[in-house]
Structure formats: C-alpha cells, structure tokens
C-alpha cells in the first residue's frame, strides 16, 4: 500500500503533528482563546504528564471493559451465527432483531441498561458488548454459509453429519470472516466502553476514562479532558493493533489457494 521507506512513514506524521501543534499554539495566542475553551498544546502535555497515573489506570479500566465486552460479543455473536448457519428458519425469524440491535442508538438505551443492571462495571461491559456484537454476527454468519460447493460435496460424499460439517468445514472456513468482524468490532467495543462509562459515571473505586472525562468536563478541566481523549484514542489503536496481529496470524494459517500452475 505505502511504498515509502519506514523513516519517512514515521517522520511524516510526526512532522505534521509538530506543525499542527505550533499552529494551535500560535492561534491560541493570536485570538486570545481562554484556556477553558482551548488550552495550549504544552498545557495539555503538562496535564497528561501530571495525571499520568490516573490516565493509565483509567485506560486500564476502560481497556478491561472493552476487551471483556469484545470477548463476550465474540462468544455470543459466534454462537448466534452458528445457530443462524444451522437453520434458515431461525435466520429468518431472528435476523430482523439482529438488525434492530444494529440500528438502535446505544446512547438512547444506555440509561435503560443502567436502570436494569446498575451503575457498575458490569453495565459498561454490557454496553460495549451490545455495540460491538453486530459485525461479529453478520461476518461469522456469512463466513459459515459461504462455503465452497466442492468442499460441501466432498463432505456429503463421505456421509458427513451436520455436526462434522460444522466443526471440520464451516467453522474453520469462517475463521477469516470472524477476524474481519473483530477488526470492526474492536473499535466499537472501545466506543461502547467509553459511552457506558460516561453514563455510569464515577461509581466504583476505580474509574475508567469515560467516568474521568465526565468529572473533568464538570470541573472545566479542559487540558485534562483533551489528555483523556488522547488516551482513549491510544487505547483504540492498541486494541486495533492487537486484532491486526491476530489477523495476520489467521491469514498465515488460513491462506486461501493462490493457484500457481507450474509443477516441480
């Protein structure tokens, strides 16, 4: 995709960042923007450094919620997809509700979830799970169903049972689709966790980034708030990179036929 040497690929975005930071700094001076609205970049850096331990522990809490939410949505989503793959009847009956899950604005039902499940970590995981489950269900279902006809015939000719076809053919074939779904869902799970925390607020002893941001906003600690937003972004990137590593592993193990012709 990108053919530039590694040094350029690293230097270019960093250079751009520095330029933007300098412009930002000058603009705040130039237009006399009050720090409550937009603090200078150095102030933000300072704020990040000062509250580094809180940010790290907050990020860790949010990461746990997102990762747990993603894990649960992967398990439940895959299970639902397997059910879907086994009967078109189940698929037809349930699919509209899965679409509902995708279209319902999670921000709207988060308060309801808090009423049901309480203002606690569990609810944050639940929000993260609900928001990240749809790509898993739809990708895995399509992976389980779009099986090479020759492979299906091969299994039929051996008299394979439905279970054998599922375990030895459909599930391995769907691994790549699952990883594709995870790539989308991992970002959603972080969003879900933060939205959940924004609603749940600081109820527990250890607060996630969302809860911290709630408090910072209330106290007009804008520099800290921007620092927390950056921590959120970083968190999303870390999770995405983890999924990418998983993706590369899956591609290596599950490579499709490239079909070159010459015999040795």
């Amino acid at each position, binding site marked *: 995709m990108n053919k530039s040497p590694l040094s350029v690929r690293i230097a270019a975005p960093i250079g751009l960042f520095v330029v933007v930071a300098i412009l930002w700094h000058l603009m705040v001076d130039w237009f006399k923007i009050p720090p409550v609205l937009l603090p200078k970049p150095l102030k933000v850096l300072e704020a990040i450094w000062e509250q580094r331990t809180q940010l790290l522990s907050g990020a860790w809490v949010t990461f746990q919620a997102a990762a747990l939410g993603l894990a649960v949505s992967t398990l439940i989503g895959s299970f639902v997809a397997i059910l879907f793959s086994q009967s078109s009847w189940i698929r037809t009956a349930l699919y509209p509700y899965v679409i509902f899950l995708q279209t319902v604005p999670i921000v709207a039902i988060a308060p309801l979830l808090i009423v049901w499940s309480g203002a606690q970590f569990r609810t944050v995981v639940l929000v993260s799970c609900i928001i990240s489950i749809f790509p898993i269900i739809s990708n895995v279902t399509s992976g389980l169903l779009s099986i*090479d006809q020759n492979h299906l*015939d*091969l*299994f039929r*000719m*051996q008299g394979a049972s439905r279970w054998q076809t599922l375990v030895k053919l459909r599930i391995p074939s769907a691994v790549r689709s699952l990883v594709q779904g995870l790539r989308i869902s991992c970002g959603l799970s972080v969003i879900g966790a933060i939205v959940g925390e924004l609603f749940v607020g600081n109820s527990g002893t250890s607060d996630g980034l969302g809860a911290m941001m709630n408090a910072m906003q209330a106290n007009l600690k804008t520099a800290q708030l921007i620092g927390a937003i950056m921590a959120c972004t970083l968190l999303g990137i870390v999770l995405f990179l983890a999924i990418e590593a998983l993706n590369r592993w899956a591609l290596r193990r599950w490579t*499709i*036929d490239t079909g070159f012709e010459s*015999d040795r």
Partner: protein
Amino acid sequence: MAPTAIECQALEVVFANRGNKQTILDGLDLTVPAGQIVTLLGPSGCGKSTLLRVVAGLTKPTSGSLCIEGKSVRENQHKLAFVFQESALLPWRSVYQNVRLPWEIRKAPAGFDLDSEIQNVLELVGFKPNDWNKKPHQLSGGMKMRASIARALITKPDILLLDEPFAALDDMLRSKLNDLLLKIVEQTHTTMLFVTHNIAEAIYLSHSIAVFSQGKIGERIDVDLPTPRQASVRSTPEFAAMYGRVSESLARNASA
C-alpha cells in the same frame, strides 16, 4: 465379462428455473464395467459433469435408474470417490491432514493402520515426505491435484469419478498425471469414470469413450490400443486414426 460397476438406465435430469425447464440428461443409458476407465467426452455444458454428479449421488435424477455395483447410490456411496475440477483441498489443512480427512469423517474399520495407509497413498501419487506438511497454498497446481487424488484414494474406492481434473494444467503436466492415473488403475484395479473435453487425453486413458449428444450417449467407442499404455502410443498411426474417429464422432454428435 467383467461385472458392472455403474449402470445407468433412462436417466433424466431436468432443472426447473423460474418456470423454464431445462433438460440436462435426456434418457441416458450408460454401463461401466468394473476395472475399466470410461471417459465421458463432449463439449462444455453438455451435461457430462451433471452425469458425474448424479452417479456420485450429489444430484438426484428426475427419473431413471442408477446402480452402483448392483445397489443404489445411497447404499454404495462409500465405495465412490470424487476428484473435483479444482483440487478442493481444505486450505487450513496440510497435505497429510487433507488426505486424512475422509477417515476423520467416516469410521475407520478395525485394524486399519491409517498413518501407513496415508504414507502409501502419498508415495503412490508422488509426494516426497518433506512435502507432506505443506499447506495447499505452498503447492503448485499439479501437486495440489496429486494431493486431491491421494485424498480420493485413501478410502480405497471401487469407483473413482473425475470431473475434468486436469483442465487447468499445462500439457506436460497433464500427460504426467494421466500416467499416474494409469499406474493407479494398474495397482488398485479401480474403476474410473472420467470427464474431459480433451480428445487425446480421452483416448490415452480409456478403455472406452462415451461421446455425449443432446443429453444422451451418442456413441460408445472402444479404444483398442494396447494396454498398458505407453507414452509412445501417442505417436502411432493407430492413435492418430483413433483421434480422427473420435473427433469426427464428437463433431457429428454435437451437431446432431
């Protein structure tokens, strides 16, 4: 007279597509004696692959009867093996694991030494031990096809059904694999029903060629060239004469 491996009588396959009825097989009769290689020859889309799928029990005939070694396909499907046009190997499994697959699905008979059977069959098709653990994407087209044939042979089928297995391979490779098939038949006495649109391949491999015509067998041509076939037979006048006869029949039946 050899016993009959495959017996088709008045087979009819009609596909209905949105009210359009399309007759693929139209009262087809075919007999394949045990231990022989019979080739189904015809232009693309004439129904030869459909016939193969019917014999394999993968497509239900609309009417007519089909016997595999005197019984229904359902009863004797385990005696058949299918080699697909593409190798159809499972990409996440190694060659060895792909060949092993049929016996992971079926129940192996008591005392069946699966590992040594796999080794034998991989050696038979020309796999060196250091290639056994390769994944399909690491193999060339020819090696994939060899692995696919090995997977078909591992169940010791009485009848091997091959659907244009070498269509995507170059001529050199095709004739190498033709020789491999002849070697397999000699060693295992497997009956083969082989679909191709390559006339030279059909003549070289078969005891008998069934030329398709309008969903039926238009002509059955016995190939009276000496067996076991040697590669040199391809340059004999008899082979050339046979080639002329088959291609003439093919042209006649295609336009009939």
